[in-house]
């Protein structure tokens, strides 16, 4: 049981999907986000990176996903993918890599709560991170 004083609101959670052509580590995560590792505000993205790593609940090689034209692909739970995401996964499959699915929660700390409720996507030549709200 949690006891909260002050302004009380509902909890939020959101899912994210990462298409990774290589192993994701802190340095590569920072590069994807667009921030230098020695930035004076690196602690914010260190907290985000930690939340993402903790939040991953499903990880698999793109080759192991099976039939991508199946209307529902299981990431440990059924999740319907949009045509946009299916296209991105199919494109990534040609060059290999893996997919990571996970969730963020607003209950952990203020950093994770911010990224949980923010809506964004980030992409470079090695990774695609979909943190958009309920659109895939």
């Amino acid at each position, binding site marked *: 049981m949690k006891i909260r004083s002050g302004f009380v609101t509902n909890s939020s959670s959101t899912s994210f999907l990462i298409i990774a052509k290589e192993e994701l580590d802190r340095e590569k995560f920072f590069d994807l986000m667009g921030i230098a590792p020695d*930035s004076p505000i690196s602690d914010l993205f260190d907290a985000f990176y930690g939340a993402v790593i903790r939040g991953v609940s499903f990880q698999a090689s793109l080759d192991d996903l099976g039939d991508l034209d199946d209307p529902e692909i299981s990431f440990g739970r059924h999740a319907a993918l949009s045509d946009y995401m299916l296209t991105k996964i199919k494109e990534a499959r040609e060059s290999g890599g893996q997919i990571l699915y996970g969730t963020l929660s607003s209950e952990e700390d203020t*950093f994770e709560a911010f990224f949980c409720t923010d809506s964004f996507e980030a992409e470079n030549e090695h990774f695609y991170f979909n943190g958009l709200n309920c659109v895939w």
Partner: protein
Amino acid sequence: MEIFPVTLEYEWEQGLILCLDEFVDEDELLRRANVKKGTYAAGILSKIYRNIFVHSVDIKYEFEKYYRLEYKTFDRYLERRLFLTAEESASIAAVSDKSVAILRYKPHQSFLSDEYGIDFLQRLLMPKGDT
């Protein structure tokens, strides 16, 4: 630069009074944060920049332009018009002469609350050369 946490007028939420030593443009803010333009991190900082430098009210300018005649002193203006405490008003007034602007700022990002938010903004807005 000084940052004072305050309760905003008529709003039961915490805000900040930012006493700036210099103006900073958005490109400079990104350079100080070592953030690349066009990225997600830059988008976050861009929103913070606009909230501070576009949407916040410069209460020092407002006092000088509209309220000096009525309130006479800046600390009296802060206390009677903005409902700051006597202590808050005196502290802010004490640094007003050396401040190029004094902004009444309401942070929109949840991670900018409390002491961490003040520290974060000081790291971003501290004049070049300061440690």
